């Protein structure tokens, strides 16, 4: 089983656009959306949901006012400042159990917290696993792990050997959960000072977890000198630039039409995305 993960460090560089295009071109694969707190891939792939499953994050502490003697020991010991005036702020509670442990009157219970949903779906472009974390929830990394596990099981069941995953922005908890153990990471960047800065950090993350990585420069012709700097940087680091996508109005049009780029357009960005996909397939054969 091979897993291709698309991440970027910086948000808005074109991860979802590329994953949708790959999903439209690849055969016999499962698609997973691991950007669980702002999932967008379903807007392009338009999946029909087959099963909807509850996701439980860590428990949240709740104080039973009838049992509470207002001794204040819970508030004193909580390191997350989640307890004030004998009531718990669920936005601050991390579910650590410490308050329940110190409560002398057994007034604190840890309640399960439904923190979102995950879905197994069918789409024109094949089977898909995606999720929606509840608003202002934590444990996005745990939900990512659930999505990846479900995608692997679905691939096994369908006899597919490839999973294409849309990752979250950043380099924190949900990215780490998306990255560990994948076959190849595609790092999507853009020719801007921020794109360059964030590429360096996400590349260090991939190396930290020993995941092979290649780079795609999106909208490379918007700032040719910045693109050249990115290419020089990749050469120095020994990282392959597997594709360069030009700025093309068709990309935005395909988003507005809610159709994957390569199914919508035969323009220059679609051609470059196709070439990138061919490179990635070659690369996946060798990892």
């Amino acid at each position, binding site marked *: 089983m091979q897993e291709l993960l698309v991440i970027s460090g910086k948000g808005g560089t074109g991860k979802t656009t590329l994953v949708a295009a790959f999903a439209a071109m690849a055969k016999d694969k499962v698609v997973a959306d691991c950007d669980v707190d702002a999932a967008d891939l379903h807007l392009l792939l338009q999946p029909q949901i087959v099963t909807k499953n509850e996701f439980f994050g860590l428990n949240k502490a709740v104080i039973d006012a009838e049992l509470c003697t207002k001794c204040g020991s819970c508030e004193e010991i909580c390191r*997350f400042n989640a307890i004030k005036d004998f009531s718990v702020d669920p936005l601050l509670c991390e579910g650590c159990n410490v308050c329940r442990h110190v409560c002398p009157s057994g007034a604190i219970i840890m309640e399960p917290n439904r923190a979102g949903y995950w879905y197994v779906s069918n789409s024109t472009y094949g089977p898909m696993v995606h999720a929606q974390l509840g608003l202002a929830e934590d444990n996005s990394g745990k939900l990512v792990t659930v999505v990846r596990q479900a995608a692997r099981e679905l691939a096994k069941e369908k006899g597919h050997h490839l999973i294409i995953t849309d990752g979250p*922005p950043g380099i924190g908890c949900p990215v780490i959960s998306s990255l560990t153990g994948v076959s190849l990471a595609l790092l999507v960047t853009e020719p801007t000072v921020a794109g360059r800065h964030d590429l360096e950090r996400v590349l260090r993350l991939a190396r930290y977890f020993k995941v092979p990585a290649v780079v795609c420069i999106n909208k490379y012709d918007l700032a040719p000198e910045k693109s050249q700097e990115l290419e020089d940087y990749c050469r120095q680091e020994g990282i392959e630039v597997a594709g360069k996508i030009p700025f093309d109005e068709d990309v935005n049009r395909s988003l507005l039409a809610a159709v994957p780029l390569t199914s919508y357009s035969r323009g220059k960005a679609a051609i470059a995305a196709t070439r990138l996909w061919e490179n990635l397939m070659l690369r996946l054969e060798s990892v």
Partner: protein
Amino acid sequence: MIVAVASGKGGTGKTTVATNLALALQNKLPVQLLDCDVEEPNAHLFLHLDITCEEAVTLPVPEVDNDKCDGCGKCSEICAFNAIAVAGDKVITFPEMCHGCGACALVCHTGAITEKPHRIGVVEIGNAGRIVFAHGRVDIGTPLAPPLVRAVKKHASDSEAVIIDAPPGTSCPVVAAVKDTDFCLLVTEPTPFGLHDLKLAVGMVRELKVPMGVVINRYNEDYTEVSEYCRQEKIPVLMTIPFARQYAETYARGRCLVQDYQEWLPAFIDLWYNIERLVQQHARAISN
């Protein structure tokens, strides 16, 4: 007044808005800019920054004295984060999983567990012209962003204008950045992705009970659903920044609109005063 600049979707222009706002205000008011996107901080790339001080941010993680440990397993039983486990007669800790709650040390009846600081990142403090600046940088491989976000926010002074550049998304690091601010400015773009993630961000800001307004970046007339949505939800659109190739080039080179295009200077100053007015209105509405 503390204003957080956030967005559901990444790459919509949070840092553009936060840095331009800070630069526009610096000759008017005492300004502080706090970059709370600790996974990928970018604001410093647009400012000429003098970092004057740096402090490591740590969490207290367990250290186990295996001579004192009797292998009872209570520590791993109470730990909600799978950060401590008993394997045979040895206790293994996973500091990168630890939230620093102190539960393990609390339940250990032999006193085998003490806590030691574990570094998760760094906060850097400095100045950019008249702007007082701080940002956080999570160490590579560290999953825990929220404690670092809170460490950056601790530097919020009583400056007249405190601007927070928040991370993307709608989950815990964003909540940590936006919670207890006076106003949240949501930056979006006129695409189906922008709208979808704006709706999520609006839901999150409502949970936090913070008043909000919207900036539509890369604005064009092709997709009016974002403006339509804001009208329906009665969320004020406080600024639109049109799509223009020269603006993209300004950004690509690490420059700001207010530096290259003078007309944006009064626009960002107005944006601030409009926010101030909305915050006052909100305060009045609450006290009534």
